[in-house]
């Protein structure tokens, strides 16, 4: 109970402080992070759709970007659902590209039968492709040009 009251009080305090802060900023002609007046509706960010079709790689060792949605695929300590389609044991049946054989090498370069632990969390390296502007600008040019 005590904790609850404390939480409400601190939330209230924070809100009041913030409101005062925004007020002060706007009176000084500074735009807020919100970029719009408090009475205007704020446009939400665009939702970018999944792009289909495989993109060419920009350099030889690039992890290919994912040409399909990866929403709702479980990747955790217990299960990696990507392997259901991409592991060498299933890829043929599922019509998916087999994991690169590099994914079956451990740190010492030993060939394994199951995917290496270092490759377990696929989305560390492979991201779904979307028709979205780059988050960070860069001047990279593929080595093939």
């Amino acid at each position, binding site marked *: 109970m005590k904790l609850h009251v404390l939480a409400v009080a601190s939330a209230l305090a924070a809100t009041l402080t913030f409101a005062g802060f925004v007020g002060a900023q706007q009176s000084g002609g500074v735009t807020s992070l919100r970029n719009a007046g408090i009475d205007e509706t704020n446009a939400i960010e665009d939702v970018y759709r*999944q792009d*289909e079709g495989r993109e060419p790689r920009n350099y030889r060792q690039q992890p290919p970007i994912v040409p*399909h949605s990866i929403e709702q695929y*479980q990747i*955790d300590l*217990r*299960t990696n659902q990507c392997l259901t389609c991409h592991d060498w044991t*299933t890829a043929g049946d599922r*019509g*998916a590209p087999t994991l690169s054989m590099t994914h079956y090498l451990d740190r010492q370069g030993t060939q394994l039968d199951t995917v290496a632990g270092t490759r377990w969390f696929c989305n560390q390296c492979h991201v779904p492709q979307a028709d979205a502007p780059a988050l960070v600008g860069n001047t990279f040019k593929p080595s093939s040009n």
Partner: protein
Amino acid sequence: METNLGEYRETVHYNNHSGVRAICSDCHVPHEWQYKMKAKIMAVKDVYHEVLGTISTPEKYEERRLEMASAVWTKMKASDSRECRNCHAFEYMDFTIQETRAAQNHQKAIDTGMTCIDCHQGIAHDLAPGYLEEYNHVVKKLAAQPHQGPIDVAGIKSFLGTQSE
């Protein structure tokens, strides 16, 4: 029953773009009277274990996760995913607006008489390690029972008189 409820709330059957929701009973309680009664009687077992606390801690739950999933897969495979099909039907799917991957596999499923649960394990609950092996085991077990073979596609086609097409 809290663990599985929580997991389900992270999935598309709970929240999605179209605003249609499938609740627990939509998938786990058949519509047809005779199957519904059977499900209700079998549910006594769930109540019993809930009272007993068989899955009352996360650790106990994990220990039983695969076994519980396997029991449900067996039911779904044996009934040709009857409860899924109360809402989903191949006939109503527009393959042209599905992801290529999905459209191709749905066509394959029709052609070879596969059923929803053959691919869609873990759509509403987390999966345990070794789930695919266990599912294959379920399929083998059912296939070994004489009356539950795969769907006879050729038979259905000739029944409908579409064999010559």
